[in-house]
């Protein structure tokens, strides 16, 4: 079982914060929404892309590559930033083209960019597609894993629960669902909009293998993935309790930043805090 040294944990923390900083810069430059949701999931992305997903296979579009689907595609800025961090996207091109007329750098996750498996942002689409990929791997005898990151607000969508039943029925133990449970959605706290708690219990009842963790803790993310990878027979889910806007004091759990991009002075302060 993988155990990270403290230096490596620090490195991953720094990678996550670099992705946060680039994501905020992208949002600021073109005044795009969803900054806070991009920050809550950055630690998860840092772990997956630095420790688990073979980036060279992604670059080569190998049929054996692990698949990562960002179902909460509205928060793509930190995914694009992470893809730039690991060399799948070019950082300068990303900064130049993000959400610019005539480019392919859409402001929701888009399969027109290298390394992005699925165009998303219309919510509740990623997990069913991930189920199909995981089933395809099993049917064709391939060993790749499928990771799917969803938002907790997105779990309102019925299509997710159809997929959750399907994955358990077909014992898709190569499927890793990660719920970025930052506890906020478009018009408020998830507990006030459409409460789905206790989320972990619901998933256990659907016959999934569940780990519930602090989703902004690098070591906890790694331990949860390791635990799940050592078990088989059920689809796997990490209920990752995160903080929306994580890493920037004035953005944390602040609904304003579901919508607003940071202004000049806000970006300056954010980059200082993330440095």
């Amino acid at each position, binding site marked *: 079982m993988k155990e990270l040294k403290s230096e490596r944990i620090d490195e991953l923390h720094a990678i996550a914060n670099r992705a946060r900083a680039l994501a905020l810069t992208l949002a600021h430059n073109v005044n795009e929404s969803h900054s806070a949701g991009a920050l809550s999931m950055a630690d998860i992305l840092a772990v997956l892309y630095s420790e688990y997903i073979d980036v060279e296979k992604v670059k080569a579009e190998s*049929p054996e590559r692990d698949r990562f689907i960002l179902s909460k595609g509205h928060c793509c800025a930190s995914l694009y930033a992470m893809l730039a961090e690991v060399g799948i996207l070019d950082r300068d091109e990303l900064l130049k083209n993000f959400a610019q007329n005539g480019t392919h750098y859409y402001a929701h996750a888009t*399969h027109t960019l290298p390394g992005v*498996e*699925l*165009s998303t942002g*219309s919510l*509740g*689409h990623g*997990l*069913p*597609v*991930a*189920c*199909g*990929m*995981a*089933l*395809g*791997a099993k*049917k*064709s005898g*391939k060993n790749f894993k499928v990771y799917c990151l969803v938002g907790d607000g997105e779990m309102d969508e*019925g*299509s997710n629960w*159809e*997929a959750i*039943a*399907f994955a358990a*029925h077909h014992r898709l133990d190569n499927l890793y669902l990660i719920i970025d449970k930052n506890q906020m959605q478009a018009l408020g706290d998830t507990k006030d909009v459409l409460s789905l708690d206790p989320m972990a219990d619901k998933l256990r009842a659907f016959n999934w293998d569940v780990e519930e963790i602090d989703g902004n803790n690098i070591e906890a993310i790694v331990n949860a993935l390791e635990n799940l990878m050592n078990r088989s027979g059920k689809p796997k889910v990490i209920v990752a309790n995160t903080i929306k806007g994580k890493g920037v004091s004035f953005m944390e759990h602040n609904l304003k930043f579901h919508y607003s991009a940071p202004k000049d002075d806000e970006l300056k302060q954010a980059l200082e805090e993330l440095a």
Partner: protein
Amino acid sequence: MRTAFINQLLEEARHNERVCLVVGDLGYHVVEPFAEEFPDRFINAGIAEQNMAGMAAGLAMTGYNVYIYSIGSFPTLRCLEQIRNDIAYHKANVKVVSVGAGYAYGSLGATHQATEDIGALRTIPNMVVCTPGDPIEARAIATLSANYEGPMYIRLGKAGEKIAHAEAKLDLKIGDIVPVMQKEGNAKAVMACGNILASAKQQIETERLPYDLYSVPFVKPLNMKSLQDIVARYPDGLITIEEHQRSCGMGSAIVEQLNDLYAAGGVANYPKVKCIAIPDEFVGVVGNQNYLREVEGLKL
């Protein structure tokens, strides 16, 4: 028609290991031979069409040619956004198959009548829309679709449709408009799609109507050259007939294409086109397929 399609698909699956059949818990007494011969390539996704369509896209992205199969509105309108975003936008190799075109399940009411599906599916980019008119065409489209890489909608009838073509086997290409009946001197042509084809043929024969008859097994894309030739051949114009709403159906598609052809100078004289289709209403009474066709005026 559905049995002819599935039996041909089974035949295709015997030499094409990429063919998978996913059903939405429907297909009793139709899909069992496929399930028994290819249990590893048959999935009952349950009564969960959104997941069925999205999952099919993901499965296709790993290399399979995936057919999703259910009744009328269920694999089409119920999961339209999955078809648009996951299947069509990504050009995933998924074939959406519906059974019970038009009023085939007429007595069950509007919930089970497939009368808006062509319109919904043909507005989506990258989708080929197939509307086979008889079991011969259904078999040909099963073969064609098994060898086609990309999204496709296949609108089937139910059971017991009469064969309209004289040929025992057709070799269709996407866009083909297929002559069914032609007689020297006829100045008007009927263009029919779906399982109303045989009814149109019967009416022309019984009433000795002076019309040639063509089947339109592909509402999208239409072969422009074929359409151009047909228009040039019939000075009295065209009649389109379909078991679908008038809006955005096959007749609409023909008129749109004719308009483009005329604007571009591809048609010298704009033909008279009479479109016979459902007049923008849910049928208000119980009835079998033939009865409801009468109620809605779906005859020549």
